[in-house]
């Protein structure tokens, strides 16, 4: 109550400065790319002389882009399912278990979050070279699962922690077996956490580029890799169109996740 906007004083200016910088360096360039994807100039002249959907037509006509997008979606969906299932089991053991070394195990599950992604990529690449898994769908899924799982575990653990075990105990005293209680009471109660974990896992895979570059083969690459490699060769408005689609799906899914969280707090 000490700080309403009229009394912000110096904060007000600092806040304005940060907003300005963020808008300048983050939002404007991305809006700029989105605008270019609808612009008629092949040479990315801004502002565009006129508006067109040509680059989207070109994008969808090119089977390589479509294949990349489908690959991304396929990998993302598999990662999502595995990440939620494994994350649920790991979270149950971490949150509910009383065995020793629980803290160590939890730290271990979160290591992929803190290791430099380029090192994870190099390490997985070296392993997959031996196993002959580079350029395979399995390789992609495992690589993305390794980075997505910590987020799924954090999200599901959080939901489990805020779920009072007394409710599960009540279900058991009501006559439900421990397994029945978990399936009929605990899982429905943490479903928002499971949905969030699913969305995060999909997005992490959908947006990931470093690991994907290492895993990719000429015949199997994800959308971010295709954007990356195309950019390296040639700055065409088709890349802007592909980028726009990537951003669009990301933002839509994040809004869905936010609405989910809001629905839960009601």
């Amino acid at each position, binding site marked *: 109550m000490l700080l309403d906007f009229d009394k912000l004083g110096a904060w007000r200016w600092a806040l304005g400065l940060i907003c300005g910088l963020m808008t300048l360096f983050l939002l404007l360039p991305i809006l700029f790319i989105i605008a270019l994807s609808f612009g008629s100039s092949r040479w990315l002249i801004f502002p565009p002389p006129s508006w067109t959907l040509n680059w989207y037509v070109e994008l969808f006509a090119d089977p390589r882009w479509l294949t990349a997008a489908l690959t991304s979606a396929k990998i993302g969906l598999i990662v999502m399912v595995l990440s939620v299932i494994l994350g649920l089991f790991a979270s149950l053991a971490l949150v509910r278990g009383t065995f020793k070394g629980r803290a160590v195990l939890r730290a271990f599950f979160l290591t992929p979050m803190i290791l430099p992604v380029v090192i994870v990529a190099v390490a997985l690449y070296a392993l997959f070279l031996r196993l002959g898994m580079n350029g395979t769908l399995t390789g992609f899924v495992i690589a993305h699962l390794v980075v997505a799982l910590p987020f799924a575990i954090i999200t599901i653990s959080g939901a489990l922690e805020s779920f009072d075990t007394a409710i599960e105990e009540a279900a058991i005293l009501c*006559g439900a077996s421990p397994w*029945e209680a978990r399936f009929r009471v605990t899982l429905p109660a943490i479903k928002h956490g499971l949905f969030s974990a699913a969305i995060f896992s999909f997005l992490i895979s959908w947006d990931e580029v470093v690991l994907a570059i290492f895993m990719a083969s000429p015949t199997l690459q994800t959308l971010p890799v295709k954007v990356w490699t195309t950019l390296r060769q040639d700055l065409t408005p088709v890349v802007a169109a592909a980028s726009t689609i990537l951003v669009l799906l990301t933002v839509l899914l994040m809004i869905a996740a936010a609405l989910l969280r809001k629905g839960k707090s009601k």
Partner: protein
Amino acid sequence: MTPYLHINGIRKVYGNVVASDHVELTVAKGEFMTFLGPSGSGKSTTLYILAGFQDPTKGDILIEGKSILSTPSHKRNIGMVFQRYTLFPHLSVGENVAFPLRVRRMGQSEITDKVRRALALVRLEGLEDRMPTHMSGGQQQRVALARALVYDPPVLLMDEPLSALDKKLREEIQLEIRRIHQETGVTILYVTHDQEEALRLSDRIAVFNAGRIEQVGTGPELYANPQTHFVADFIGDSAFLKGEIETVQNGQASLRFGDGSLIVGVPLHGDVKSGKGAELMLRPERIDLSAVAGEQGASLPVQVQDMTFLGNNTAVSVRTAWGDPLTVRLGFGHPLSGRVSRGDHLHINWAAESAQAFIQG
């Protein structure tokens, strides 16, 4: 009294901590038994062992003579209401109450009928479709009670179910619980740290302290005849005056106090060998304050320290000649009411049989 439920020498140890020890109790069918004690006294641990959430380190629990320890929680057919709100958040009130019947694979028409009757029992008729999150704490605990009773369990456990509610609501639901106990005849084991709640609800009370049961009895028994200092202190208001034992005869002691006063004929509890020190316990409402020493019974001189008007009575803080403080309550209409001043020298008088003495540990 047929011993329907028998808690037989339960001991529970967590690591180095003894949560409960030598807990021994029999409960009759249909009895309302309350476990009363401060937090950490082992009353909840005993309840959890009954529910099957924990296994005792030693001892057994028998219902109708048969041990239930090897039966898993979900097959014990026991009802329980928890301290925290435990309604299933994703199910409606009706489905919450129906849950125990659904896991028992009961038919839909029977379920509908039993749920309606259980909700009527807790006075929440027609709220089947409400979601738990849209209910007050008091309503949620009523639904939890309906859910715990809908499958007619012979034993109902209640773990401080009213502690999250405010005083007015608590008293209202206490009345409901009493009524439901009478209507259903279920055997209730009720855990609380609130002595007034225990006195209001229970047929008998087991007073827990430091993992053990100190005394079991009806409210008036515990109040009139506490066997230990702890029970005397925990149930009802009481004042303790420190003195030394002069003589003991037939369980009655003469106590000498710091100013030389001698009080004779006080019932004495505890092992006399353990020391000469003892505490005289007086109930404030049995003490009369007056300008002169009473002619019958016992009496001690005191000096007034402070007075506080408390509405229906005035609390007068006094100090004995050797410095022990105690509080006397003057009801409306007492001859001294409104006429006491700080520093006054008065007397406290009481009937000899209303005091008790406890050996100091």
